[in-house]
């Protein structure tokens, strides 16, 4: 990509990718969804695979993901993105297929589809946005909500004896032989975003090898649900989310 030169000698080193539409994003200010959408589309743009990529959107705040990503997309029923992506990839094995889900979609209602999609080693990328809350429906508890976390359905704080424990689904999935590359990333700092982008790029490259499922958990925020400013949420992620959901590669390909 040739960088444009401004006549005062400055070249453009970053601009919004053409694979993002011009539709203004509906997400709350500072929402991690927007950042991840952008990173995904940057990679699709840089790899030149806009005409070969099909995405599957979930139910949740990102139900409208297809309004922002300028690629062919399908809207899945709640929890079923893994199955929908399987259907697409099985009939279009030469295309790049990714699913994009929140914590309720992937780890509550969709748990069976999630586990079996990875267990079959479907050659797709599964993107898992973990912000420990149900944003779209008004801030209810998620399977990944932390112990003691106050949400709309755990007003006294999550009581693990009554409501179960925060579910580390990513670690569970990494144990499956069908999982090729499993990593946990975030968007809380510029460097975290750089690492996330690297993980996304690697995942699309691995998809060509037909060696199994790439799974990226993105520890993200919910300023509205957490009732914090965006800058505060990034600090909260560091102090509260990472101790439970630590960053890094959990499983890497053995080649």
């Amino acid at each position, binding site marked *: 990509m040739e960088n444009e030169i401004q006549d005062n000698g400055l070249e453009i080193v970053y601009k919004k990718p053409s694979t993002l539409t011009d539709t203004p994003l509906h997400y709350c200010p500072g929402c991690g969804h927007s950042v991840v959408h952008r990173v995904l589309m940057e990679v699709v743009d840089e790899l030149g695979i806009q005409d070969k990529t099909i995405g599957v959107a979930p139910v949740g705040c990102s139900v409208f993901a297809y309004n922002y990503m300028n690629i062919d997309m399908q*809207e899945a029923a709640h929890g079923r993105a893994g199955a929908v992506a399987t259907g697409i990839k099985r009939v279009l094995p030469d295309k790049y297929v990714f699913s994009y889900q929140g914590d309720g979609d992937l780890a509550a209602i969709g748990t069976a*589809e999630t586990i079996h999609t990875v267990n079959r080693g479907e050659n797709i990328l599964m993107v898992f946005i973990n912000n420990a809350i149900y944003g779209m429906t008004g801030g209810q508890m998620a399977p990944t909500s932390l112990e003691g976390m106050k949400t709309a359905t755990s007003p006294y704080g999550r009581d693990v004896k009554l409501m179960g424990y925060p579910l580390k689904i990513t670690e569970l999935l990494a144990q499956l032989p069908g999982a090729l590359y499993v990593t946990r990333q975030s968007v809380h700092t510029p460097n975290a975003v750089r690492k996330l982008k690297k993980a996304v790029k690697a995942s699309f490259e691995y998809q060509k090898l037909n060696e199994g499922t790439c799974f990226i958990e993105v520890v993200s925020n919910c300023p509205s649900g957490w009732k914090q400013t965006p800058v505060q949420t990034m600090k909260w992620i560091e102090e509260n989310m990472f101790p439970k959901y630590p960053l890094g590669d959990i499983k890497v390909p053995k080649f």
Partner: protein
Amino acid sequence: MEKINYKRSEPRLMKGNEALAESAIRADLDAYFGYPITPQSEILEYFEEQIPIRHGKVLQAESEVASINMVYGAAGAGARVMTSSSSPGVSLMQEGISYIASAQLPCLVVNVVRGGPGLGTIQPSQGDYFQAVKGGGHGDYHLIVLAPATVQEMADFVFDAFRLAEEYRCPAMILSDGALGQMMEKVELIEEGQFPKRNFSWATTGKPATRERNIITSLFIEPEKMEGINYDLQAKYAKIQKNEVRYELVETEDADIILVAFGLSARICQKTIELAREKGIKLGLIRPITLYPFPTNIIKEFADKAKFFLVVEMNAGQMVEDVALAVNGKKPVYYKGRMGGMIPTPEEVLVEVENIIAKQSEEKR
């Protein structure tokens, strides 16, 4: 529905479920996603054995919920795709079916009905008529529903179902039952290569520079838009109702008592007609082949001539309501059925006819 004269193979003896599956492969099926459930697991098993050595894709999914959503994904990607199940599994698929209908995707769902409700029995039943025709899923949608009565129809209707589904961008259902699925009969299968596939401009195959992106969705959050989609769907269904009704008439030319039955019940009624005519009772049968669109008009026509209608079905009385609607009070409409997997006998049905005749002449006095 137009009748197409396909070239066919030599007759062979086949089980209903297997004939259906074999026929689907010959219809150039792209993919089958399914889950085992009696009495139709042979469909999945047949595909798992045959598809790897012929063509297409097959996958045993983790549940019927997963199956129908895989169908949605593949159909949205432009593939010729189907699933099958039996009553409880089809209940699980209802959300997915509603989504497929709203997103206007072609596909085939086969329900080999068993006795219910609940976990029920594995014996045949027709208890899912309401679910199939009135919509077990939410919202105003319809499936095109075909009801086979023979193993030959189990096979042939696969072609009809895909043809209609793809023409109208509408999910289609073959509503069979446990007996038809398991019985073995002579069948002349349609030969492969006569049903080419189509390229759908709306499918998600990867956005080239030459078009806008394709989005497959059933989410239309502005109510004005959602109502618009509903108008489109209703217009489509009106067209289907006008053009695609299919039924069979058996000995109705001189009949003054009309049986209405589909699938297995229709076969039983054919024997009842034989027995009745030996006794001088002029019995005839209207056999709906499409349950949606329902053959309202032909039933309406017969309401002039007939003395009464008897609807015979293996449920607590479901299709009888649609017959009554069609007859619209002109003549009495009665129901005779067995439930929970029991199959009525031809003699039983005849006894019912005779009882009604007796009751009617008593009332005249």
